[in-house]
């Protein structure tokens, strides 16, 4: 059965070929497209391991599932590990659906979530829609800057709703507690949707080059994507009635990144994102003053980590300039977008 008015969805599953993680995400994704019943819906598993692990693992899982939509699952591979953003872009480029649903391979898609998100995307001004993300177990450190932390300050009937704010001229992602909805509710405008599970308009996403490579190899891409859309005047929403379960405790890319480097890259990208979205001279001057102060204080305190992340950011100064130049239609200031 095909609804000619409905949008087709391509689920992009970037992975390093970890079977344990794929066993969490792939069955749910298959069930989702199976329940939607749209033949064009597809699942694109993008193997970024550089070792074509998914080519072996995915057929095994499909065999275990024995789904009639198994033929809708396609495995793409990158020749070398190129990072999350590049993998998603590859999947987006190969996808056929009008909607792109980026799903991390450790996220279990809830029943009806795909349909709810697709419904939210029916509004033309919605650039991205994200589900309610619930944690399956203890979150791992440094899983993502945009990742909700495990249950802190929330009741059982609440979930973490991350939002971006500027604190002391520094971008921060803060988790707000939101109530789990009873039944269908309207989408909620947000500043960004975590890349854990996000639905996008494929065409727009591909045209703007996917996640900004400025932030490669990881971290802050989703925040940048949301802020860019908001600055363009597009909507970014969260659909509380659509739920996913994040199995953040499973082995992840962070197991392949030394702690110090992970922190340095995260902090670097925080700065790069801030620099990218500095809209006015006054904002830039204030930020420079703030940054310099931070550098001086780090130097006095012997804070190598801060200095290292700042130095890493400075190494990409040229890329920042290029990225800023590529921002088309971003006429709104960040403070306006964030309501600050």
């Amino acid at each position, binding site marked *: 059965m095909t609804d000619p008015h409905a949008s087709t969805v391509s689920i992009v599953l970037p992975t*390093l070929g970890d079977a344990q993680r794929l066993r969490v995400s792939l069955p749910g994704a298959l069930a989702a497209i199976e329940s939607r019943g749209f033949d064009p819906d597809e699942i694109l598993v993008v193997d*970024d391991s*550089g070792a074509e692990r998914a080519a072996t693992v995915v057929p095994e899982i499909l065999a275990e599932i024995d789904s009639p939509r198994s033929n809708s699952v396609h495995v793409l591979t990158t020749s*070398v*590990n*190129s*990072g999350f953003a*590049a993998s998603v872009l590859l999947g987006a480029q190969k996808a056929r659906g009008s909607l792109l649903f980026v799903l991390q391979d450790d996220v279990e898609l809830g029943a009806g979530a795909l349909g709810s998100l697709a419904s939210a995307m029916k509004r033309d001004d919605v650039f991205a829609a994200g589900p309610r993300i619930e944690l399956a177990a203890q979150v791992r450190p440094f899983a993502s800057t945009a990742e909700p932390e495990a249950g802190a300050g929330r009741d059982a009937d609440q979930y973490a709703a991350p939002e971006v704010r500027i604190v*002391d001229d520094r971008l921060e992602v803060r988790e707000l507690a939101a109530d789990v909805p009873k039944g269908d509710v309207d989408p909620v405008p947000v500043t960004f949707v975590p890349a854990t599970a996000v639905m996008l308009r494929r065409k727009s996403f591909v045209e703007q080059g996917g996640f900004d490579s400025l932030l*490669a*190899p990881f971290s802050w891409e989703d925040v940048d994507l949301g802020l860019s859309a908001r600055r363009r005047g597009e909507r970014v929403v969260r659909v509380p009635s659509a739920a996913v379960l994040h199995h953040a405790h499973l082995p992840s*890319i962070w*197991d*392949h*990144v*030394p*702690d*110090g*480097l992970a922190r*340095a*890259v995260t902090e*670097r990208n925080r700065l790069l994102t801030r*620099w990218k979205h*500095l809209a006015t*001279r006054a904002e*830039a*001057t204030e930020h*420079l*003053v*703030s*940054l*310099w*102060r*931070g*550098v*001086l*204080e*780090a*130097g*006095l*305190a*012997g804070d*190598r980590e801060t*200095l*290292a992340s*700042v*130095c*890493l*950011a*400075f*190494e990409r*100064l040229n890329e*920042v*300039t290029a990225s800023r130049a590529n921002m088309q239609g971003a006429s709104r200031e960040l403070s306006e977008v964030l309501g600050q």
Partner: protein
Amino acid sequence: MRVALVTRAFRPRTPFDPSSHVRSIAPALARSGVSTEVFCATRGSGLAPLSQRRIEVLDHVSGVPFGVTTLEVGGPEGGPDADAIAAAFGAYLDRERPDVVHVEQLDAFGPGLVREVRARGIASIYCASDTWPAHDRTTQTLPDLSPFELGDGEAEARSIMATEELGEVPPSGRFDDAARDARLKELLHDPLTAMDDVLRLRSARERVEHQRATKRVALSGVDRRFATSRLLSKELSAAVGRAFTFRAAGVDTSLFNAPTVPAEASGPTRYVFLGTTAPTGGVDVLLDAFGEARAAEGAPQMQLTLLLEADDPARDAEIAARADLLGVDTRWTRGAVDVAGALADCDALVAPALWGETQTSLCRVALAAGRPVVASRTPGAVEALPSSCARFVTPGSAEELAAELTRLAGDGTAFADLARAAVDSSRSTKSTDDEAREWLDTYTKVVEETLPRRGVGRRSSEIEVLPGLHDVAKSFATLERMSMTELFQRAQDGVTKLKKAFGLGDSTEDLLLRVIARGGDARDRAGQLAGLRQELTESLENLELTRAAMHREEAERQGRVADLHGLLGQYEREVQSRGEETARAVKELRDHVSRTEGLEGQVEELEETARALDEKRRTAAEELDAATGRFETLAKEAERTRDALAKAEDERATFETTLSERDALVRALRDRLGAELAEADDDGAAAPGLAALERDLEGIEAFCVALEQDARTLRTHDEWMREETGRIFQALGAAAPDGAGGGSDEGGERAAFERGIASLEALRGELDWRRTEMEAARAAGSRLRTKVLAGPLVARVKDWDRAASRFSSVPDDRRAAEAREGDGAAAAGAADRVAAPDTGSVAVAEGPPEPDAALPSQDGGEPAAGASTEAATGSAEAAPGDSTDR
């Protein structure tokens, strides 16, 4: 290449302190292109413990800077522990990120530093210039300055034990206190027999062994080990169990001009000594030797200069005084020592040290300056000095040293040869630049060898970094290897670039002003800290107040405790005393119990006695009552007796009158009889009757004489009786129960009554006797009357009877009883005497004759007369005697 040079202290250059070598090698390394950072300790800088400060020092030759970071490790009273110091060094390593750590001295920090180096995978080198790997006492001398062999743990243990007990020994190696000095010698050298000493030595020995083991383990983790002399490398290799490679230290030749052979000496030979006044340096020996050499006859001219580093004031003053006496030029210095100048101004160096290692660097410096050396024959000096450039003497031998100084000064040729050899030797001197090159080569090799163990971050060895991370990981690793200074410099450059990229035209100064004005975490933290400090200050003030209050309370409490202790002591003494008393009481009680058992009988006896006494008292009371009755009776009797006496006196007077009358009568009768007899003689018929009358007359006369005697006796007795009666009445008056003389003393009253009663009894006896006598006299008178008299005499006798009956108031029954109780014979006699008058009175009662007709009859008169005479005589003889007896 970045190297961290670790040393005890970054001292000015002195040729006799191994730690000052870093002052030469650090700039040499900097000159050779190595980024050089010196890490050293400081004490008493005024900074908080573990504070670190970095300064930049410029190499005086090239102007290349190198960093010097000092770590405050606390004053002599003690500072942070070794772990805290090691942690501080770890922070230094994280900040400076050296590629290699080159340790020159570790004694100020401890072996923990090596662990920190190893934990970070940094290449490490240790170069020993002393015996620290084997001993904490790197001088290898005991506290009394006597030497010990390398590896002698026993000596080190004894040193620890001695200093722990006696405190730090003065630099002279002796205590002023003889007792402490003797104890020091005992602890260091004598066999220890006291158990406490043995146990403490064992403990010290264990600590020495533990320390050695810790060092051994730490040094095992060092990638390369070197020693500055062959001797040291050999000995440390043996002691530590790890190979120490010999690498000679270089000499900073930039300090010296090119040495030349001195011209032929024309003046005195100039010797110089460099060092401290420490006894191990041998300056005492040198002064002794110099004095001896100068005093010798024909001694060559010599000069001596002492270039001394002030160290111990007392010791320095002593040496200065000795040097002055000898005319030795003494120069004192603090800090940098102008070695080059001192050596340039001398002909030879004298190095008379008692201990060998430190002088090797000094000897090398002297050779580098082209100066020969007169040195103690210690292994280090022998190794450092070619025999052609030096003369050796026995360490500590002033005689040998004096002889050598004299010989060199007096033998110009020999001295010239020696000086020439020294100059030749100086041309092959190893400079610090040479040494730096050797080290750079070593650093490169060791860093290459250790590179695999170095990574980025803690988990680097465990993680297979994804290819997509390679670029950023590489950049990050580059940043990680930078020192803090370099990293900050790069960040600063980035800020400038960012400003340019943003097209901001603000000047750096303006931006900096805004930076300061903006505020940030540091200011927030400072504010928070200020608040916390304020709270802390207030808390401390409160604590101070509380502490002061507690001290006061404590003082009061201690006072109370002291009082209580005193009280307790008192109680204890009392308890003890009472315990003793109780013990005594128990003993006494036991004795008493035993005695009581015996006393019970006595008590019973006493009770019986008391009862008897009560009875006796009762009886006495009754007797007293009776006596009182008797007293009253006797008083009455006495009254009557007095009356009777008065009557008796009257009667006596009458009797005397009668006697006188009778005497006159008798004389008349005799006269008449005489006349009659004469007539009868004349008339023979009447002869027999006259004879009888004469006999009667004689009998009457004799009887009258007896009566007169009786009368005298009675008068005497009357007088006695009167006096006695007076006393009796006086006594009775005094002893009367209710009389004025009556006292409260019952015993006294009773005694007085007793005496009174006794007196009355005696008086009664006397009255009885008197009555008896009177009755006897009456009987005699009756008989005489019967025989001789009649008429008025008989009547008078009857009056005597009546008077006698009035006198006697004692009842007849009582008199009879007393007569029964009294002397039988006397009573019988008395009764006889009483009975006779009764008989006579009966006869008289029949009718007394008239005096004229009352002539005695011839019959029946003799026995009576005889008995009367006998009785009267007896009475006359007995009465005075009785009276006298009374």
